[in-house]
């Protein structure tokens, strides 16, 4: 009995296909999915229950008079279910707040890989700080995509010399990444469904977002904040590699210089 219940629960919690969730390739995604599926089943159940009551209420006729209220009826039909509802949603919120705190209240570990993400109409650029582990200064006036400087990296700042700019985000599996999100022109939305993350990039602000990819593969990076006519095609690939493949990629790119 207990076992079958366990089986049923784990089947429901793994029912990503029924709900059409894409695969999850991140460390925090498992808990997020579990909580999301729990919520989805609960609201499906509540919706079904409410509709059953609605249909039963109109289909099974009784005396009209019977509907008049008394205090006990009001408590039974209104306040008790309401109390149950309040408890249920408090519980769900509490769980959700803890997951939110876990992923957002604190920043990344100091050992996390640093990558800067810049959104502009209609492309994402990814910058790695290079050997010196420091990003070079950027200057809006120096923006010149035609001359190969889409981010406006200031050549006068030596930190920028070894910065590596890429049009795809390449990450090692199993290591936390600390993204700093920026936008040059309008608000963009940085979203990776398979990593279960989303965060807007806002002009004038640098916003940090951290997560740990776990599963090697190629995933979609979308823009999820309306940014103009090319919004639908503002995307890039996230390639998650094994640690050694990543080292290799970084090495090749660094020796080749910026592209």
């Amino acid at each position: 009995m207990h076992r079958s219940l366990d089986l049923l629960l784990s089947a429901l919690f793994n029912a990503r296909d029924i709900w059409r969730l894409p695969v999850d390739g991140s460390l925090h995604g498992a808990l997020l999915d579990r909580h999301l599926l729990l919520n989805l089943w609960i609201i499906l159940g509540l919706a079904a229950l409410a509709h059953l009551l609605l249909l039963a209420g109109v289909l099974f006729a009784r005396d009209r008079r019977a509907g008049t209220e008394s205090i006990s009826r009001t408590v039974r039909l209104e306040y008790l279910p309401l109390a149950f509802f309040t408890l249920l949603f408090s519980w769900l919120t509490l769980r959700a707040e803890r997951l939110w705190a876990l992923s957002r209240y604190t920043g990344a570990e100091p050992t996390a890989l640093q990558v800067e993400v810049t959104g502009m109409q209609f492309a994402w650029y990814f910058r790695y700080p290079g050997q010196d582990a420091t990003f070079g200064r950027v200057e809006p006036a120096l923006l010149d995509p035609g001359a190969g400087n889409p981010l406006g990296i200031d050549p006068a700042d030596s930190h920028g010399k070894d910065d590596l700019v890429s049009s795809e985000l390449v990450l090692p599996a199993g290591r936390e990444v600390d993204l700093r999100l920026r936008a040059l022109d309008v608000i963009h939305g940085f979203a990776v469904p398979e990593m279960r993350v989303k965060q807007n990039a806002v002009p004038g602000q640098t916003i940090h977002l951290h997560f740990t990819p776990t599963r090697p593969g190629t995933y979609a990076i979308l823009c999820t904040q309306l940014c103009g006519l090319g919004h639908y095609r503002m995307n890039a690939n996230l390639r998650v590699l094994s640690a050694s493949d990543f080292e290799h990629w970084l090495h090749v790119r660094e020796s080749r210089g910026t592209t």
Partner: protein
Amino acid sequence: MSQSPYLRRESAGTLASSVRLAGRTSPIRCHLFTTDHRAIGRLYLWLALLSVAIGTILSLLMRLHLTWPERVLPFHGPVLPEDYLALVTIHGTLMLFFVLTTAPQSGFGNLILPSQIGARRMAFPLINAVSFWVIAAALVVLLSSTFVPGGSPISGWTAYPPLSAVPSAGPGQGTGIDLWLASIALFAIGSTMSSINQLVTVVRMRCEGMTWGRLPLTVWAWITASMLSILAFSVLLAALLLLFCDRHLATSFYLPVGDVVNGTLRAAGSHNGSPLLWLHLFWFFGHPEVYIAILPGMGLTSMILGNFSRRRVFAYRTMITTTLLIGFLGILVWGHHMFVAGLNPFAGTAFSISTIAIAIPAAAKVLSWLATIWRSRPSYTTAFLFSLGFVSLFITGGLSGPILAQPILDQYLHNTFFVVAHFHLIMAMAGIFGLFSATYYWFPLLANRTLHEGLGRIHFVGSLLGAYATFLPMHLTGLAGEPRHYAQLTSIPNAAGDLLARTLPLNRGITWAAFFLAGTQLVFLANLLLTLWRGPRSSPNPWDATTLEWHPNLSESDFGLLPVVYREPSQYAYQNGEARALPQWIDPALLPSAPSTSGDRGVS
């Protein structure tokens, strides 16, 4: 509740002068430049009907383009991405402002509210007329944006800057968005005026005996929405003004230093604004706005369920409280639109708690509705069916709200079609069902005729199936990752192309369903025209209702004495399993003594 002091009776003098005035004016003046609240209410309904027709056609064009992008429109050529975004923007603006804000609040508010409180007119007839014409002008200005160079704006109904602040950000972001700003500013002014008018009308013009506790729930909904309107639209107006300054007077309320849009660097000065200011101001307006759109439907649903179940609305006092509570909490939740916008994460937690809190009064309403109809042998009129549909849509659409209110889940679902599904069910479809319910129920008062019930039932069944078939699957494409505001789902490069392509089969089904849903509305149009042309005359109180709008002396042509109110609405005397209505205006002294009545009681 104790008797409230005698409120106010209209003097014979005002009446006589309004009769004189009516006699002198020409028919055009009489119908168009009228200050008569009923005529103004009808004008609002025509305006909303025109807007909903245009808005629906635009939504079908969007769906067509999403699923069959290579189709070329007749007289237009291929649909460009900016065309799609212009369609979204005008669709959303029309539907939200010109349909769901005008029709329930100002349309039926004018037609029904005064008589429901036993008044013969609104408090400020001239302001009432002016606000209608301001809103009509707003509609013309909005639609004219299609015809200017660059076309309509492409920044959606939320118009986030810098996209909306900088002309170089895209086609439609020049003159197009200036017209949008002007239109919404006019709309905000018109709505504020009309809300002040409604609020004063309810406070000052209730007839004798119409205490606060005896007000129908529709009136409670209207005044709550009015209070929200005054607050929300004035903040919106200020926000629009600041955006106008950023666009034309080189200020930077919403623009940071060093913003480069499309190669143009904004003159860097010492002024460092932030787009987040707009998000705060806009959603401080935007969230109350969705309650303005839905509260009247909630009030009406309560009254109609009571009327056709022949019962007092269950927990009437609690219903009043939850209406006010929803209005109040509605002001405190705007941050739930900004969980991933760059707020402090602690703010996310705070806004998620206030948002979950609002689910409690909403759930209380659903419980009351279920208890009101529970095994009551209701009569299945079309108005009742649409109210049941409202309850159903409110439940299905509402339950996904608490999911979106959890920031950790919103970080996956924000701006996906899951959100589009949520707000179309709870706001768009429930709101439209409320409007249909109102139309079938009050049509005898609008046109002295009754809409055809058989056609009405077909209309109801088609609309309910169509609404669910269209909007339920959107939850799944959203969970699969489909973002909103995407002009195209095919021929997208990279891994994103695969992700989006996986949603195509469901998306085709959604488009077919949307056409079915829209097609069903032709049944309603046919019913409307047939009835207006040669429908049967209605009897004075065809639904055996208990509220004052059905009082014979308050009809359009009758100038009898104002009524006096003796009890709460939806009171019935029960005898041998039958329920006899006790209208609010019947003097208890004139009632044959019934063995058991459920009279006016103080507690619920």
